[in-house]
């Protein structure tokens, strides 16, 4: 499986061909632990594997954590976890079906206005929109 993946990886990104050997050494556990570095968002298959390679080559990267902390002490991910817990499924989902949201989200066109402002009074559930 490892070899198959490295071939796919190479096909996707020739820059990584020299990493092939390291990549073969990956175990499933290492790949899974690498995933934890993907914070709060989604990457392509390519980028995800690229992360794994980097993490393994760099070993335990203390400087990495220091840099992340240096960039900003804020931890929006922590607050996000709280919001996820407090959210009630289904409530506010109509927003995702509105033309305004769909257009803003789906169109890959620089003519579309890049900013969507969802406004409402305190307590209407703006934060808890899914």
């Amino acid at each position, binding site marked *: 499986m490892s070899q198959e993946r490295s071939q796919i990886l190479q096909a996707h990104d020739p820059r990584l061909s020299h990493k092939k050997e390291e990549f073969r050494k990956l175990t499933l556990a290492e790949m899974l632990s690498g995933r934890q570095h993907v914070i709060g968002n989604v990457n392509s298959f390519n980028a995800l594997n690229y992360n794994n390679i980097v993490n393994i080559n760099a070993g335990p990267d203390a400087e*990495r954590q220091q840099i992340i902390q*240096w960039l900003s002490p804020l931890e929006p991910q922590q607050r996000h976890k709280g919001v996820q817990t407090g959210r009630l499924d289904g409530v506010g989902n109509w927003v995702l079906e509105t033309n*305004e949201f769909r257009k*803003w989200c789906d169109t890959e066109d620089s003519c579309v206005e890049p900013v969507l*402002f969802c406004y409402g009074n305190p307590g209407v559930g*703006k934060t808890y929109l899914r």
Partner: protein
Amino acid sequence: MIDSLCDQVAGKDIAVVGLYCDFLAQQEQSTANMLGAILKQLVSRGEIPEHIREAFRKSRKEFGSRRLRPPDMVDILKTITSLERVFVCIDALDELAPKHRRELLKSLQEIVRVSPNMRTLLTGRPYIDDEIAEFFSGAIRLPVAPTRNDIRSYLKMRLDGDTTPKAMDDKLRADIMRVIPEKISEM
């Protein structure tokens, strides 16, 4: 909103970052810290870009480990957002200190000028509408208010979690479920 976006972009080369503003944290939610929080979510997905590492090492040699200044962060964000699609979600913008809010909007405006494909979602109370329009004159506006169904779901959840359910008979429960959604819809 962030989770929906994450679901929708799954498998694509798109990044979603989120920020929350809070009245109680106005001091620490400075422009530099807010831009830094966008930056750190973006760069922590993979290898930290070498120029950021270098800037960090250089700063360590200076007194007090000087942080990146907002203009430097804006420049880095311009580069990242021109290379890939980024969604930025900022919740409760009205809770940011006015000075920081204007600076943040101005920074976003600068980034969008270079990367018109970056998408920004802002939430907040209606009164900051004018300020947003000042920086993004064409911003799409979407009023948010709970629907009757939203209110019913919420009430049901609260009633189901009642710790003394015997204190309420079926009629009272039915009345609550009927009257409150009606009254709120009239507000």
